């Protein structure tokens, strides 16, 4: 079923209801989903699909992915975590990942913001400049 503007608006309102102090409240999200599924209305599946999309985007905004070529020492991890908490506020879900192809340095992605200080990014920039 094609999603209408009204369904999008409803999904957005439901998404707003799930936010508490700028953070997603998991229990409210569950409640909303259960309510929509139980209602059995024909508009529910597309509304739910859009709600899910907003949820994914919202979650991504509060998720930080830190990638490095080697595993980071604990003190550096703590420093990065506190730095991110300072900049983006509390409630940030932080995950660390290893990517040897980055060669060196660190790449941090929080939502749409990317801080790339890796050797690979530097080399790519150099390649583009030629």
């Amino acid at each position: 079923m094609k999603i209408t503007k009204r369904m999008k608006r409803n999904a957005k309102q439901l998404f707003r209801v799930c936010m508490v102090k700028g953070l997603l409240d998991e229990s409210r999200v569950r409640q909303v989903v259960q309510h929509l599924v139980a209602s059995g209305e024909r508009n529910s599946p597309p509304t739910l699909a859009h709600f899910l999309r907003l949820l994914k985007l919202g979650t991504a905004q509060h998720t930080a992915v830190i990638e490095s070529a080697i595993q980071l020492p604990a003190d550096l991890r703590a420093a990065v975590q506190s730095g991110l908490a300072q900049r983006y506020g509390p409630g940030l879900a932080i995950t660390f990942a290893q990517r040897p192809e980055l060669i060196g340095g660190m790449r941090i992605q929080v939502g749409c913001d990317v801080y790339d200080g890796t050797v690979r990014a530097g080399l790519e920039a150099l390649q583009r400049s030629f």
Partner: protein
Amino acid sequence: MANLLKEIEAQIAGAKTAAVKQNVGVIREVGDGVAKIEGLTDAMLNEMIDLGNGVTGLALNLDETEVGVVILGDYTQLKEGDEAHTTGKLLQVPVGKGLLGRVVNILGEPVDGKGPIKSDKTYPVEKIAPGIIRRRSVSQPVQTGIMPIDAMIPIGRGQRELIIGDRATGKTTVCIDTIISQARLNKAAEMAGDKEYRPLYCIYVAIGQKQSTIARVIAVLEEAGAMPYTVIVASPASESAANQYLVPFAGAAMGEWFMDNGMDALIVYDDLTKQAVAYRQVSLLLKRPSGREAFPGDVFYLHSRLLERAARVGEKYGNGSLTAMPIIETQSGDVSAYIPTNVISITDGQIFLETDLFYQGVRPAINVGISVSRVGSAAQLKAMKQVAGKLKGELAQFRELAAFAQFGSDLDAKTQAQIDRGKRIMEIFKQAQYNPIPVEIQVVVLWAVQNGYMDQVPVARVKEFQNKLTEYFTTRKNQLLAKIGREKALNDELKAELKAAADEFKQTWH
């Protein structure tokens, strides 16, 4: 070698690396020259978006969760899931005199195979038009070299004069003639070392045209020696709709550089109908709401913001100007269609070309009755005003009387004389293409017809008389022509000299 190694080591030791913050998004949907990108929360309107693989896009729709981007390049290289990031830059094109004589694309890249363009300055493609304070009235003429235009629908520097007509009525030819005329005037002033003369540089923007048509225009301009004073910005029909919609703005940016640097430029948009169609395509692909004839609601703003960039700026701001000659193609002469009415209301006048006149042999096929120039008369040469001041009225009377004469009733001598004069004027307004006439010659010819020198010449031989008269003045009376050009007005002394010369010519005419 040891020194080099030390230098490199020192540079590495001193090098500071900093992570650059980027705003990224993921391509959710791509096709038909348009991409929807999720993320890119910091994207600005009209910002260039790096889509990877050397492809650039332009952010046109900023929605809550995604950004609608038109792709300026080969979108077949992109796929769903690719990463895109903002650049913090608006779409820019190179500007400057280095572009003269070149054929470039929407991004200002050369497409003529003559090597890179020498330009170190760029201008944003979208720019706010000069405001009220910066502007001044139009006061200097653009000599198109087309007699009916220079005599009755004069164009001033900084004016926006619309060229409107059906297909194949000579709209492009009028503009090409104007460009050739400017090149000849520029060249003549350069050779004479005239410091007073302000050269008029030309920019020809080809929108959605066939490549062969563009190649023909280039060939004509090259043959006429007009290319050194001209820039051609082309987005042919084979390019994407996004390119065709943006190319007039790129041309305007190149023209604005001349204006901002105290020079004069003329820009021809050939044609804005195709640009509107391309914009409609882009808007529909971006799922913007459509209005009349499926054009988006801001199609008026599309043309108004483009044409408002043509201006004459005050002396305090460099005294430059940008004259615009937009072209609009009508369907079966319908000027009341959506896009024609929009552009008519934006411009400072229009030159209307008619198919009927074209096939009657009146070329350029200008319908003088409905063509107007709202501000150009202030810029018209005084000499031209003196000889052509009453022409429009006389021609209107002629058309009315000629309609009556068709009924075959007997006419009094005065009416007959008016009809005869009208026929002769119509005849002298016929002009071969790519052959602009210098303004001094136009003044002489119009003076001759107004003073009855052609009254005895049969209508069929008027053109021959005009050609011989032109030849006579250019070969034997070139000093008189130069004087007219210098004085820019016909005083009693000049009139006497003109009369003597015309009498002398009349004696030799058989």
